[in-house]
């Protein structure tokens, strides 16, 4: 755990995510849970009591399809309003280095509250990358198989039949990862500060530096962020 001097600008909020991403993420998240809830009674009989709430099976189906369409829109929002960010994100996802692996052992410690050290990370840490990758894969699975389920008449039966399985797998995997993702962002004390990042797009500078050192330092070089390592500040602290 770093135990550095508090920099005066340490609590200053710096922009981590563009507005488009904030919107995209919010829409995506809301749609995901809406999809989850509208499909729950179909997934297991235990939740059949949801049907009356959702307007019967037909209502649930309709809502599910509406949210399915909404669920797809974030990609386009990003592509249209912030393609730069989108490609950066993609680039991050395919860039894997040794430190990404180191991250995981430390992450487990962090997760359960043990002592850990920050492995220097770029814009996304390896955990986030894994989250993104899995979520994207799951989303593709769920969307593609969802299409076959929605329009079974346009696909060979075998595709539709496997569609059910893949929808299930995609969703099952997705929800499992999401539970962790939500926990970390909303509850877990170390990553919690990042939560504001997906709400306002801004995070505290100190937190960003701690979690995404390489990225932060790069932005500092570009003059975008305050240099928290500036010795004169250190002194004055």
């Amino acid at each position, binding site marked *: *755990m770093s*135990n550095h001097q508090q920099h005066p600008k340490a609590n200053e909020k710096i922009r981590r995510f563009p507005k488009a991403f904030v919107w995209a993420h919010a829409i995506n998240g809301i749609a995901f849970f809406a999809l989850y809830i509208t499909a729950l*009674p*179909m*997934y*297991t*009989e235990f939740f*059949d009591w949801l*049907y009356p709430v959702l307007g*019967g*099976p*037909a209502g*649930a*189906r309709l809502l599910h399809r509406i949210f399915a369409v909404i669920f797809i829109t974030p990609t386009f929002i990003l592509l249209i309003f912030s393609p730069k960010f989108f490609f950066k994100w993609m680039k991050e996802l395919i860039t894997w280095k040794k430190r990404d692996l180191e991250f995981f052992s430390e992450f487990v410690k962090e*997760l*359960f*509250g*043990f002592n850990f050290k920050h492995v220097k990370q770029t814009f996304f840490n390896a955990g986030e990358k894994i989250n993104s990758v899995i979520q994207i894969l799951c989303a593709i699975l769920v969307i593609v198989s969802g299409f076959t*389920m929605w329009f*079974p008449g346009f696909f060979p*039966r*075998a595709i*539709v*039949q*496997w569609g*059910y*399985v893949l929808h*299930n*797998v995609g*969703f*099952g*995997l997705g*929800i*499992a*990862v999401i*539970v*962790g993702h939500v*926990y970390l962002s909303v*509850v*877990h*004390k*170390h990553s919690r*500060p990042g939560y504001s990042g997906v709400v306002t797009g801004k995070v*505290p500078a*100190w*937190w960003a530096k*701690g979690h995404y050192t390489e990225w932060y330092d790069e932005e500092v070089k570009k003059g975008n962020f305050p240099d928290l390592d500036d010795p004169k500040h250190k002194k004055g602290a």
Partner: protein
Amino acid sequence: MATEYVKLVDVTKCDGCRACMVACKNWNDLPAEPEEFSGTVQSHKKTTADTWNVLQYIEHENGKGDLEYLFRHSSCFHCTDAACEKVCPENAISYSKFGTVVIDHDKCVGCGYCVQNCPFEVISLKEYKDKNGKEYKLSQKCTMCTDRLEEGLQPACVTTCHTNALEFGNKDEMLAKAEKRLSEIKGKFPNANIYNPKGVGGTHTIYVLTEKPSVYGLPENPKVPTSAVVWKDYAQPIGKMMIGATTMAVVGAFITNNIISKRIKGKEDGGEGHE
């Protein structure tokens, strides 16, 4: 288990009169649904939500170059291992004490999973309107007149069949009959076979066919779709387990975090915490 019953369809005795189709509509009170002209005598391409059995007419030139005009009463097979029953998310499909596969329309939500997974493609969805004009869907197929069976009657199609091409009775008896019939017709129809596919655990509508199943548009080796098995026997339970596991992990993390941070707080006097 109570006695299992089987509808035996001996296509060699069917003369294609279609009384079975009308009797079915009559008993089950199903509306007519004329289709476009098909170019053949066949009235409906396949079974639908309102047409639970369809008489197929097939013009087939056999190995010897002779024309055969084949008739087949096609309806639900009532599989012993029914894919529809397996995939139904609402447990709306079940096996009756007669061995028939029935849909409970109070439970059916019209998701159509059964429609897509039936290896014989005999289940269909239909949209209905309730008295408030609200639309809802139900999945429909031949019930083998289970309501009649409960009253000690035979299925309507069987009762009306005048050539005994359709017979209904005790499973063993029907199977024996099928075997006997097969031996009688083998000479005339070398490709004759009994269609009681093992891939679905055997069926409760069993055929004596004169030609290979594919000639009748039937799958040669139908089975419960592998996808349905993967889905229902693996993916779904594992999925549920995974949600459980991550939830447990999160809960565990929350607890350990609290314990550890309290301990650390105790030691370091609240030195931790970024906020």
